[in-house]
């Protein structure tokens, strides 16, 4: 378990360097992950303008909060991605309440997929995750993705899918457990 024997990956080294105020480490982290994180933010927010704005916010927070990262409590990658997802879901909620308050709220057209700026490492990770998700039954996968990319709670997912809460919980549990088992070996250091 990560708590017992923390692995020092380059990501966590970068975060430690950022915590010491090393600007080049932040630049390196940006170069490595900005495109992956932007993909996440775009998937959550469906607006390039919003996603780029949150991306900027995320890197500022990484800069400000890197000292709070503790590798005994998980991967650097997880810390960074979780931070990005939280910021995006916060933004999504504020946009949604604004939309309720004002129906004319601006929403960008869906972003077409342009030249993907993936390097070989990210392409490999993408393939591993794609393959893992394919092994998870459709209804479990759907619930997982609704929780992850739309920030819905179990009850909200149950309402969205028109399924009993108990069923949804079971599906999400099975799906997550399976995902962890499938990715466990392959992505431990990622």
């Amino acid at each position, binding site marked *: 378990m990560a708590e017992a024997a923390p692995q020092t990956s380059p990501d966590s080294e970068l975060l430690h360097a950022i915590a010491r105020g090393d600007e080049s480490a*932040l630049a390196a982290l940006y170069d490595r992950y900005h495109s992956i994180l932007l993909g996440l933010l775009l998937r959550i927010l469906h607006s390039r303008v919003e996603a780029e704005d949150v991306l900027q916010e995320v890197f500022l927070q990484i800069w400000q909060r890197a*000292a709070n990262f503790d590798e005994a409590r998980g991967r650097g990658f997880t810390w960074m991605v979780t931070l990005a997802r939280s910021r995006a879901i916060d933004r999504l909620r504020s946009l949604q309440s604004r939309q309720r308050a004002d129906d004319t709220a601006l929403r960008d057209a869906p972003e077409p997929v342009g030249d993907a*700026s993936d390097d070989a490492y990210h392409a490999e990770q993408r393939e591993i*995750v794609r393959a893992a998700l394919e092994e998870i039954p459709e209804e479990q996968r759907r619930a997982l993705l609704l929780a992850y*990319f739309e920030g819905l*709670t179990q009850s909200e997912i149950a309402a969205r899918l028109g399924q009993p809460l108990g069923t949804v919980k079971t599906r999400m549990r099975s799906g997550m457990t399976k995902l962890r088992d499938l*990715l466990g070996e392959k992505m431990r250091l990622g």
Partner: protein
Amino acid sequence: MKHEDYTEMLALAALDALDEGEQRTLDAHLAECADCRAELNALRDAAASLVYAAAPVAPVAPEFRTRILARIKSQAQDAPLASVASSNGAATLPTSSNVRSLDEFAARREARTGTVSRRVAMFGALAASIAVAALLISLALVWQRNNRLQRELARLANTVNQTEQQLAQTRQELANTRADRELLAAPEALTATLAGTKMAERARARLTFDERTGRAMLVAADLPPAPAGFAYQLWFIAEGRPPMPGKVFTTDQTGHAEMHDTVPPEGRHAAVYAVTLEPASGMSAPTGEMYLKSSAS
């Protein structure tokens, strides 16, 4: 509650999908159970990998990186929580993950179960965040529009510039043509005929010049193309003086050439005109083979 009841919540907690009551119950358990904390961390690692399930995106403009790196220079960093944690006694600190501290969960719960005063406060905060978001969006739109207009302006300026250059060139060509016509038509124009030497027996040329000003035009035909780095050069050869250099010129693919020059006063009478092959930059005295030569007038 049994330990198993908590472990069942972990998968949903990793996705932040628990309803608040359950989340609160789990938080209390996590504070005491290292196994569950470790399990939650492992599940969060798996959840974070879902970032790769999002579609790849079009690249970000390089200015974006510059802007972020410029902004961090002006931002102070937080003090590490770790020091706070150790002073509080880390063992009892209920930390479920790196990012979602209990404070954050508490804040979220409060937001969900707000009292009237909280709602009022929230409304103010909401209005402020709407205003900020609207401002940011407007700024982004203005910035995009500004960029687009600047690109368009640059393109138009470039077009105008090119058009002006073309116009100047056309004017120059017209002036040259007019001067040439005047020169060729002038009754006082003098003409010398140049014939090809052994080097180019079919070549021929005519030098027409104004006796008063020396303004001259050379028209040549059937000269072989000059090798790379070489060009033809005109010479004015008056008796008792070294040859005076004229300009260098090259031919088109058919061996035709037109060249404007000024004949020096000493070369306008009783002179011989010749063309040699010289290094392309021209020489002060002939060094190469002679290709064209007029007969002495």
